[in-house]
């Protein structure tokens, strides 16, 4: 049964990828990207990677196609055809790279083999001891936030850098920051009344669900990354239906920009706190007398930092794109 589901999902993924290559219109490719994200999320659920599926469903199927749509609304929906040029060199390069990648997979252990290196190195220790050492049932959270806290710090900094880069590229000299919308009233000629009414009942629950995912991440699928993207999706949905000026009055751009740095700061300060006590960076044992309690506090604090940064960077990026759309698109 699971094999059948796997085969169907994977063939749908391949079909979508092929369609993505063949289709010409930019709007259609964006929709296909979104479908690809949704299919990947379903596939991750089948693989028991629910934590990743959460993020993929929100970012891959939701937020990133939205950002692409906003860009297409500014630059136009048709791809420029380069007349007559045959990109032989590019095709050759792509073919060679693809062939090398496929050759590379031949060395990989068979899917799901018990003696694959990934299952022999540190994974057994995480699976056997993480419950005792951190007191947290969800192994993904304890690996991400405690054993591999350095890597996660790196990821958070990457996300923060992405937000900074978007502001640097898209913010012009006149508006310093992600969005400084003109206070002109929203065009009320064609309001999305039904969408607004329905979304108004849903958004509070989306935000509540984000908090649930954030603080329940120790016990079930979830954590800072997932909560951040869900929270940002709720905010972005509001922004889509009520316009950029309205959402900027609710959540002011300077505050979000500050928050995106604040999350990284919370994470880093947690690490430095342990250094001040003479322990290694990000060693949580200084946070409380009981080691398990200390682990739990540390994981909660850095997950909070991750959540704050992810949510605010996504909102910042949305603001920057939507601001471009409102100033150039209309």
């Amino acid at each position: 049964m699971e094999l059948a589901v796997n085969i169907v999902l994977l063939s749908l993924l391949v079909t979508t990828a092929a369609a993505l290559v063949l289709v010409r219109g930019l709007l259609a490719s964006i929709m296909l990207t979104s479908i690809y994200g949704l299919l990947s999320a379903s596939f991750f659920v089948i693989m028991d990677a629910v934590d990743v599926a959460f993020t993929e469903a929100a970012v891959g199927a939701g937020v990133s196609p939205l950002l692409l749509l906003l860009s297409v609304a500014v630059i136009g929906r048709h791809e420029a055809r380069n007349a007559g040029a045959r990109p032989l060199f590019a095709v050759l390069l792509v073919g060679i790279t693809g062939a090398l990648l496929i050759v590379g997979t031949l060395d990989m252990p068979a899917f799901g083999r018990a003696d694959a290196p990934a299952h022999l190195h540190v994974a057994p220790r995480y699976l056997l001891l993480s419950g005792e050492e951190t007191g947290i049932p969800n192994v993904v959270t304890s690996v991400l936030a405690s054993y591999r806290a350095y890597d996660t710090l790196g990821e958070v900094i990457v996300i923060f850098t992405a937000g900074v880069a978007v502001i640097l590229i898209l913010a012009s000299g006149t508006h310093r920051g992600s969005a400084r919308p003109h206070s002109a009233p929203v065009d009320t000629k064609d309001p999305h009344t039904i969408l607004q009414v329905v979304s108004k009942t849903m958004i509070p629950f989306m935000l509540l669900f984000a908090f649930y995912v954030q603080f329940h991440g120790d016990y079930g699928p979830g954590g800072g990354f997932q909560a951040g993207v869900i929270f940002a999706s709720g905010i972005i949905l509001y922004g889509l239906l009520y316009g950029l000026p309205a959402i900027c009055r609710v959540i002011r751009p300077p505050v979000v920009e500050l928050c995106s740095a604040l999350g990284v700061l919370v994470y880093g300060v947690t690490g430095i706190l342990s250094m001040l006590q003479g322990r290694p960076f990000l060693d949580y044992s200084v946070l409380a007398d009981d080691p398990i309690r200390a682990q739990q506090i540390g994981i909660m604090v850095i997950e909070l930092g991750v959540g704050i940064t992810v949510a605010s960077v996504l909102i910042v990026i949305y603001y920057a794109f939507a601001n471009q759309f409102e100033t150039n698109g209309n």
Partner: protein
Amino acid sequence: MMLDWVSGVLLLVGSFLLLTGALGFLRFADFYARIHACGVTETLATSCILLGLLIQSDSAVPQFKLLLILLFVLLSSPTSSHALAKAAWNAGVRPRDNRGKQPLPLPPGEH
């Protein structure tokens, strides 16, 4: 036993409706007929399937979660159909006849 039958019938009806919706989506002539086919059947079919699963489940937590999903689908599915149809109308898509060739006459005041 009785409940098993009810749940089975609900699941079958739901699957059948999904199939008809997919068929309509592929075969109907113009945009609005297609969105009618999948929008209407999708809500009812998903509700049927979720109700069938609700009866199958024997503990409270999954039942509650399924109920929440049902509520979400009942709200979001018609709304998304509406959003699609409205976006198409605003983009200038107009209803066409059964072959998808001739535009249909519009009620007075619309253009």
